């Protein structure tokens, strides 16, 4: 679910058909007033916060907020970062952005930074649509900080590193091979188990390197 969030006053400036457009199963419009402490989004949910373009910025443009800074220029939320094809903006905490900051603080208690986007955009229907299409694409992607390997594959990597007496460089290569198997095989753990069954005992790093070379070849043939 993508929550499109804005203060009721901001929402009232948006075209009515935009609000209707977003009332489908995957997107919900949420006003600030409804974000109460008992609001419980699921971990896969994301929020798109829309705020008016502050004075001094081009009226027809749209900006992704990457950082909020206080009046002294210090980062207030340095981790507020999502991907976007819009120009970035550093939003200075001041009277004209009070609404944005209040909204962010309210939402930030419910969404981790990588699932929350803040955009400054006008009430222009076309620009709103573009923001929404980008936000919908964003919510369908895993969070950028999410590692490729899942917990069991990560445990497998740790185990292989130990068994191969792996150096840092060998560990990096093992990780690359496991990522390859992650995308390529239905069950990477089973694939690695099959290899290890035929692998001779490894007693030192030299033998570990030889085994790694065999594992590399095995992966390319799998």
């Amino acid at each position, binding site marked *: 679910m993508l929550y499109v969030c804005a203060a009721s006053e901001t929402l009232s400036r948006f075209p009515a058909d935009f609000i209707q457009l977003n009332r489908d199963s995957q997107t919900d419009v949420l006003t600030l007033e409804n974000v109460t402490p008992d609001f419980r989004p699921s971990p896969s949910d994301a929020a798109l916060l829309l705020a008016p373009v502050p004075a001094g910025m*081009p009226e027809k443009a749209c900006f992704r907020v990457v950082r909020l800074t206080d009046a002294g220029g210090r980062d207030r939320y340095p981790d507020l970062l999502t991907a976007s094809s*819009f120009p970035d903006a550093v939003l200075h905490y001041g009277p004209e952005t009070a609404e944005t900051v209040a909204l962010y603080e309210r939402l930030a208690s419910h969404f981790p930074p990588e699932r929350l986007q803040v955009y400054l955009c006008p009430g222009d229907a076309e620009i709103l649509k573009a923001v929404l299409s*980008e936000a919908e*694409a964003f919510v369908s*992607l895993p969070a950028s900080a999410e590692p490729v390997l899942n917990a069991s594959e990560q445990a497998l990597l740790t185990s292989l590193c130990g068994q191969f007496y792996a150096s840092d460089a060998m560990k990096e290569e093992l990780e*690359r091979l496991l990522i390859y198997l992650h995308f390529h095989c239905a069950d990477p753990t089973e694939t690695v188990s099959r290899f290890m069954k035929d692998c001779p005992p490894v007693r030192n790093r030299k033998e570990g390197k030889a085994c790694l070379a065999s594992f590399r070849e095995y*992966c390319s043939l799998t």
Partner: protein
Amino acid sequence: MRHSVNTAALRKSFSRVYIEEAALSHDKTARILSNLPDVTPVTVKDYKHVFNRPGQNAALQKQAPALILAVKKPPYLYAGAPVCQSFGEAHFTYTSCAMNCPYDCEYCYLQGMYPSGDVVLYVNTEDIFAEVRRVLKEHPLYLCISFDTDLTALEPVTGYLKDWAGLAAEEPGLTLEVRTKCASYDSVAVLPVLRNMIFAYTLSPDAVIRAFEHRTPSLERRLAAVKQAIHDGRQVRLCFDPMLHIPDFAEVYGTFFDQVFSEIDAEAIRDASVGTFRIGADYLKRMRKVRPSEISYYPYTLSDGVYQYSPAENTTMLRLAREKLLAYLPSDKLFFWEEMT
């Protein structure tokens, strides 16, 4: 449901257009904007402020790309890269009047080359043309104009192919190669038929197209476009490049080559190129970061700064291609990209 990029979709796919200040008054800017009536242009001082920003996610941008109109600065022509097939041409050169492409191929080197998934169109093609004319006074030129993009797919918006065809018609010393996966033939059909304008269609098995060449037309549709181009008397090149080391490789590619030449008259094509996947080390490093996948994380061999399949894998793949293709084409029409050692 799978969607490929078609003309109407292309017109709607650019949700935003950024225009560099220097490009605002250019006639090609007006032409391009007239083809995009539904977008809201945003003026920027320098296109790099949008295209080269840090912290972008090109994979995400590919889903809703912006179009950036800019003015290209010299150099306008580049020597062909060693990883590219030169077709034995002495003056193998390429140019970029666009950066990035509406398609989304997982193996594409552009993901490692550019920081953004947005599409840049340079509007001052007349400067590139002037440089081409200057070089042609010194020697003939073999010029690839659709390496870092797919100009045929972008033609409904740009009209650039028509401009290039006009130049090629006036300059017999110029040979153009237009590399494409586009199956929409309408934009090509209106171009003059020229001996020195080669349409190079990249073909892949449907299994590869479905798995890795997102938003591209099916093999069936690409073959239909190839047949139309041949029917019109155009110079047609078939590019079996890159071949990918997929499971059941021999069966998939063997069937594929037979399918292609069961539909295409081999005698009617100019030539064909074959190459296995390879990519510069720096590009692969960036690709792994922006798009981890079985393509970017395959255990390649590094040789001379280029990641490629192992010599044994390359030999197996190229041998199969050679054996199959020689049944249809004479050896002087076949160009193989051999592994770098």
